[in-house]
């Protein structure tokens, strides 16, 4: 199905510009974006230096869609993202140390080294993960909103997903449930034009992704995900409507990832020209330029803010690298919430790991 609306969508052409906030706020947003960028650049380097294992998904290029969205919600709201979520955690206030240490697989990591890059978690700041199954976080995010609705506490949820995730059955199932039950949740579709190597028009019959939510009862809006101001105001408006009206809203943020899907990606599915065209709309450069033109940012200040970000990231790498690796004895911790852990029922445990009490006579206490 051709999408009649696709022509006027924000793209590498002229940006849509949200109005600037107060200077102090604007500078804080810039700093937040710089931190995400510097953090991810260093994560990428650390990955090639084999300090980080597994998959590493960078959101470089998407910082406006990340920071703008996170700055739109209250500290009492709930935030949930995907495996591409370093930026969401950092913007939410999770210390760079904890995020980097998680990437390094250390006990000081946000998830104690258990989750890695794809599964960052910080319940204290209501950053509720970091999820590796595409589409799996969508009903869970709606579940947070269900809890808020059940309790009537006025809290709301921001649930981040990718363009590719709109094809997972959980997407439509959850849109329907959220609309039917009037749940206070904003679904932010970070449309970076690709699900892995598959362009949006090759994975979605309807490329106007807001229509996908509307078919199941969720109002859709769109914002320029390369502009932190536009994203922030679109998401802020959506979250306040969803809070006051108690209903879900979907916001599609048009953005682009500058790097590969993960660290090993020859990127044969797109042209250098396309990437270059989008890079010209670098969300950090664009915002900095605007701030400079508005007389808010000078060269010195820009350098200082950047130096602060770099310093924070340097410290995070140092912290992570000198943090302890999880002890073998911790292998079985936290499989269950228990008085005494169930550590395996038989003799198949590795030597060096205390298999704990055997099946025989597990003291299983009801949690009261």
């Amino acid at each position, binding site marked *: 199905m051709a999408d009649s609306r696709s022509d006027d969508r924000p793209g590498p052409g002229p940006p849509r510009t949200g109005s600037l906030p107060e200077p102090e706020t604007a500078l804080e947003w810039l700093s937040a974006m710089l931190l995400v960028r510097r953090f991810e650049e260093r994560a990428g380097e650390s990955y090639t230096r084999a300090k980080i294992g597994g998959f590493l998904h960078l959101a470089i290029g998407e910082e406006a869609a990340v920071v703008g969205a996170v700055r739109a919600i209250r500290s009492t709201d709930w935030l949930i993202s995907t495996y591409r979520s370093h930026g969401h955690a950092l913007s939410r206030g999770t210390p760079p140390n904890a995020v980097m240490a998680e990437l390094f697989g250390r006990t000081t990591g946000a998830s104690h080294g258990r989750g890695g890059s794809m599964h960052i978690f910080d319940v204290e700041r209501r950053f509720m993960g970091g999820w590796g199954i595409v589409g799996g976080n*969508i*009903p869970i995010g709606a*579940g947070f909103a269900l809890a808020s609705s059940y309790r009537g506490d006025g809290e709301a949820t921001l649930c981040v997903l990718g363009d590719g995730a709109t094809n997972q059955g959980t997407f439509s199932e959850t849109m329907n449930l959220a609309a039917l039950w009037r749940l206070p949740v904003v679904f932010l579709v970070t449309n970076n034009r690709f699900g892995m190597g598959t362009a949006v028009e090759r994975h979605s019959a309807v490329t106007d992704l807001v229509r996908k939510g509307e078919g199941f009862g969720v109002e859709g809006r769109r914002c320029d995900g390369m502009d932190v101001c536009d994203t922030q105001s679109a998401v802020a408006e959506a979250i306040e409507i969803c809070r006051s009206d108690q209903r879900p809203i979907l916001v599609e943020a048009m953005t682009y990832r500058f790097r590969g899907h993960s660290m090993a990606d020859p990127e044969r599915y797109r042209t250098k020209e396309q990437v270059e065209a989008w890079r010209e709309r670098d969300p950090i450069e664009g915002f900095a330029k605007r701030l400079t033109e508005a007389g808010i940012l000078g060269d010195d200040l820009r350098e200082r803010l950047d130096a602060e970000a770099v310093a924070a990231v340097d410290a995070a790498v140092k912290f992570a690298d000198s943090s302890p690796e999880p002890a073998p004895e911790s292998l079985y911790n936290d499989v*269950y919430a228990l008085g005494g852990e169930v550590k395996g029922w038989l003799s198949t445990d590795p030597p060096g790991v205390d298999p704990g009490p055997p099946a025989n006579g597990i003291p299983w206490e009801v949690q009261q």
Partner: protein
Amino acid sequence: MSDLRYREALNRALREEMLRDPDVFLMGEDIGVFDGAFKVTEGLLDEFGDRRVRDTPISENSIVGLGVGAAMLGLRPVVELMTINFSLLAMDQIVNHAAHIRYMFGGAVSVPMVIRMPQGAGNQLGPTHSHCFEALYMHVPGLLVAVPSTPADALGLLKAAIRDDNPVVFIEHESLYSERGEVPDGEHLVHFGSAAIRREGSDLTIVGISRMARTAEKAAERLADEHGISAEVIDPRTLRPLDLDSILASLAKTNRCMVVEEGWPHGGIGANIGALVQEQGFDDLDAPVMRVTGADVPMPYAKALERLAFPDVDRVVAAGLELMGRTTAA
């Protein structure tokens, strides 16, 4: 003591826990206006209203997912899936999410939810509505798995499951819903990981899973009455954790062990218990651990075939005789 049906005991458990804890709520297809496909939730919508008894669309994976999210924020959702067959649609939320969240996030959060669903054959519901999948869930660390076979256990285990901070896969049996049994009147909780000795005996140990615990009990009566064989019958009641101790203690007495289950043989509950028992009780075994299982086929509709596709009392008696070295019934 009251005489209750299994379904009534479950209903009582839900009601008591909902009265006790305002964070407990129910979600599921047709559990409200329709009173539940098997009437377990009868009357609860009227009593508690549609905030706490929520009819859902037919969206198994997302219903469970919403429950996971709500549980992470401290609510105690009890999700009913209409039968265990449909739970395969929610396997991703149950296994990749509910079971692993606590571990994956370093213990920062729990998922105190219960996923209730019936399984089992016997009513000619055919190959999409009759299977037993307890083995699939027993395989997964992070889950608790209950398989109550009596009204009292249905009550006590469901109440314990709702209070537990772990995700619980709570497997009922369709053919038990109308069965009656004595149920304690006061607060009744059954701890996970403690088996019930349904009948004491000295010649062989029969472990019965889910409804097969009752089949095993009846077979043990026949073995005693007709063949003078004294079988001890154990109902593990929960499969995760499993009270292997009680099984091994019984084996030490009888030196012969049989597991009876309704599900498929390969990688079933019997295989697991068989492997564990021979590992940890090898010297006590006078004969191999025997398994009586459902047939290795999708459940057929025709009565004539369905009857053959899961164990009945005759088959367990015959297997008992075989295990005792007597001529089989065949």
